[in-house]
């Protein structure tokens, strides 16, 4: 398959989204089938490109010097693009039901579909400029989604999101410049592209720059101290929070950090320097911080968002180990967290959609009424806690294996943080489960709670099933990640 199909995969949802706005649809059903069709076709193309496509470089536009917009497929691409290609059709299906009573459904789906293309752009980007471009676009295209409800709160949240993201990108841009100047090329090549000479002479400077860019891209994956936008952005409709703020957007941040660390600066250069420790310390702190905030939060979506903050830093922590195993661990959490968190968000959204309530303390006893939803929620909770047999354990296992293997002193603290976060996760997730299944005697259960329609239940069940399946049969996936990390794939 020619690699021009990459372009098709990126552009189809974007164009499709715009067309959606222009085309007149007779009724919702047509529109829904149109959207789902676009998304599924994109996913199919993506899948074909990933596994059958040529491994060449596709240059689209040439900018200054060695800067260009170009795409390619490598291991990381497969991971990210594959993940979202699986999740997007499901999330869209879920969104149909979630958004059914919304007046501005059309504009929602327009941007929702466009975001798909932009995210794919990040995944396929072959060099730092292309990634930066789509990274910025991702910020912008998701803005209408976050502020969809147009409440004061939403607008406030969206502003914060924008400023944080763009600000972060501005800092990351600085790093980009350094890579352009001190690197052999801007392309992502496992092991880094820095001049050896530049590394020697400018090492102290480059380390600072790495830190700067780490913090910059870290904004999107909600690394402390810039994590507060994520919970605030939870005002968005749940399909957005679930897919974008638990998977696509935030993973893009982690993805960018991995790209930068492993493919641009190179781990040989960074490993063992102070900056590695600094970044790792930040990640470790964020892990604990995010989870503690989640415990304190009683709004279900915000709670999950804080949980996301913590979990994303697992990925970052894996990345900062700067060993191939660390990368493999990071990637496994990258994928697995996606499935787990989208499940829990979907469930939370289903609860909110059906009952109109949104706080944990309003969930008394609903587990007995919304059986399917809360069964899945429980699965995701167990997964997030890292109970063996569920996917979360696999990624934790890989991460810690890498941490132990790295022999890095701070990594041991990281393992401890992972476990502290696990217990905190247990507190905030099982707290919910408990309430839902074992309400206090005097508590009042919401009367009208019941399982939502199939459009919601099916995606949720599938994602939950993935959590279990990945937990039990993870070996092929993990081996694949190790291949990527060792540069064999």
């Amino acid at each position, binding site marked *: 398959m020619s690699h021009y199909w990459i372009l098709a995969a990126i552009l189809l949802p974007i164009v499709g989204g715009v067309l959606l706005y222009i085309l007149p649809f007779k009724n919702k059903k047509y529109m829904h089938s149109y959207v789902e069709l676009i998304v599924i076709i994109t996913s199919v193309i993506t899948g074909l490109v990933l596994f059958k496509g040529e491994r060449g470089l596709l240059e689209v536009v040439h900018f200054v010097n060695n800067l260009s917009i170009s795409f390619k497929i490598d291991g990381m691409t497969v991971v990210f693009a594959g993940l979202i290609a699986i999740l997007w059709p499901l999330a869209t299906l879920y969104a149909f039901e979630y958004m059914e009573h919304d007046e501005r459904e059309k504009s929602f789906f327009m941007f929702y579909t466009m975001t798909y293309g932009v995210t794919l752009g990040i995944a396929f980007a072959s060099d730092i400029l292309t990634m*930066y471009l789509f990274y910025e676009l991702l910020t*912008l295209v998701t*803005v209408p989604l976050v502020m969809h409800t147009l409440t004061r709160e939403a607008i406030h949240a*969206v502003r914060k999101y*924008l400023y944080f993201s763009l600000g972060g990108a*501005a800092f990351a841009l*600085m790093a980009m410049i350094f890579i352009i*100047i001190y690197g052999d090329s801007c392309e992502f090549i496992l092991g880094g592209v820095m001049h050896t000479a530049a590394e020697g002479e400018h090492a102290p400077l480059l380390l600072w720059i790495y830190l700067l860019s780490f913090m910059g891209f870290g904004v999107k994956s909600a690394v402390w101290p810039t994590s507060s936008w994520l919970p605030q952005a939870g005002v968005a409709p749940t399909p957005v929070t679930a897919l974008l703020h638990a998977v696509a957007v935030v993973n893009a941040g982690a993805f960018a950090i991995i790209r930068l660390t492993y493919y641009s600066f190179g781990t040989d250069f960074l490993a063992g320097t102070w900056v590695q420790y600094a970044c790792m310390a930040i990640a470790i702190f964020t892990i604990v911080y995010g989870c503690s905030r989640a415990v304190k939060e009683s709004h279900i979506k915000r709670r999950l968002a804080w949980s996301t903050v913590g979990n994303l830093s697992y990925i970052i922590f894996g990345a900062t180990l700067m060993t191939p195993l660390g990368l493999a661990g990071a990637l496994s959490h990258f994928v697995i967290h996606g499935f787990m968190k989208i499940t829990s968000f979907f469930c939370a959204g289903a609860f909110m959609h059906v009952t109109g309530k949104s706080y944990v303390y309003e969930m008394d006893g609903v587990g007995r009424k919304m059986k399917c939803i809360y069964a899945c929620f429980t699965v995701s909770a167990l997964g997030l806690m890292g109970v063996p047999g569920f996917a979360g354990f696999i990624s934790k296992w890989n991460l810690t294996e890498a941490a132990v293997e790295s022999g890095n002193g701070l990594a041991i603290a990281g393992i401890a943080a992972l476990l502290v976060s696990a217990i905190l996760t247990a507190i905030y997730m099982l707290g919910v489960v408990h309430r839902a299944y074992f309400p206090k005697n005097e508590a009042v259960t919401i009367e009208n709670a019941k399982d939502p329609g199939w459009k919601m239940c099916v995606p949720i069940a599938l994602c939950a099933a993935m959590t279990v399946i990945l937990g039990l049969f993870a070996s092929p996936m993990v081996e694949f990640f190790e291949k990527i990390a060792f540069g064999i794939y």
Partner: protein
Amino acid sequence: MAFVQNVPFFSIMLSMFSGIVSSILPGKWARRLNTFMIIVVAALSAWLFAFMATSDIGSYTYAMGHFPAPIGNELRAGVLEAGTALFFCIIMLLSLWGGREKQILEITERQQNLYYILCNLLLSSLLALIYTNDLFTAYVFIEINTIAAGGLIMVRQNGHCIEATIRYMIMSLLGSGLLLMGICMLYDLTGHLLMSNIKEQVDIIMAAGTYRIPMLITIGIMTVGLAIKSALFPFHSWVPDAYGYSTVSSGAILSSLVSKGYIFLLIKIFYRVIGFDTIAGSHILNILFIFGLCGMIFGSVSAIGENDIRRMIAFSSVAQIGYIYMGLGLGTEMGVIAAVFHLLSHGATKSLLFVSAVGLTDASGGSRHFTDLTGAAFRNKTAGVGFLVGSFSMVGIPVFAGFVSKLLFAEAAVLLPNWKMFPTLIVLAVSTVLNAIYFLKTVIRIYTPVKPEVLAEKGFECKHFKQQVLFGVTIVLFIIVNLILGMKSQPIIELIEQGLHNFM
């Protein structure tokens, strides 16, 4: 000498004479003449530009009349001059088109032709600033430029505008006074007024090591003079009023062309009169650098606090001028290239913003306050898109012009051998964030839908593309210019580099 090499002279004269002719024409015809003249000048400049870019003469001097140097007056043209002239013409034309509707409303019938006289004079003086090889000519045209610009502000005769004009004039006069003083002192030191001759003498003086202090003072006075005129922080107090209250074409032209003309002259002085090495060796650049940085931050901070969209854009100009001076202040060629590119990209972007902002305010009952602008982009979609693109460019989204200039600034900073790197990078990043804050805040605001009943209550009207074809076309053209700058930057940068080399 090929015929095409007469273009600089022709274009200056053409615009000046059409100004004079306009004084006897009625407003409508003056406008037509003006449009025609700009197009012709643009075509001529394009011709020259193509010629210069393809031929290998690099640059040439053009003696006015028959007096040879050092007595005669000279023009000088190269690829950078021709390109800038072309760019200025395009932006001017688009700004006038974009603001035409508004301008017809805001300016009385009687003064219509006056407006175009001033425009023509302004263009001719800008062209003269670009092409001239003579410092005193430059001074004279600066004054013409100042008066024309003052007229452009004042022509909308309300209190704000007159007050803004007088403030603008005062600052301008301070600047041109200093510049004139500097020119005189330079003449005193070297005995010449032609740039190339001064350069020779300056080199000799510098080599001899005499007159260090007078030289420094001279350079300082001239630089400060031009900096004041181009509204470098902290001499920007006139900017928000002048850009904010004048009719929109004037605001756009002032911010994207007039101040740029001075900067272009300053760059010429740096390269052609003093010699860039001399300049880079003095501390003048450090001062420019620091004020540039301050301007970047201060302009943006003020813009954030602003509640009026036009004034906000005006404050943003202060910040952008800061960028340019920061680039100059870096003291490397990369820095200057970045500054020149930013001069272009900011010119293209800022005028787009001014023009589309007017479209938005018109769709909000003429109110310029943010609360009324809610949802304006839905009422005037073309203007909304224009503002969106302008904002993205300002914030530095790739594909748009602003990104490239930011990239160039940063690259220049990274390659610096001295202490300026970190301040530059940090301020660049911070100012990007600040830019994002006020521009995207506005974008969000204008793209926030409002309920129809609220609209009906306030009496805001929707404007469709068909009702404002010229405006729409202008916006589209602006966007195209922006995209060209953003995506085809490589040849442009190469030409700038080539042009700067020709300066030496």
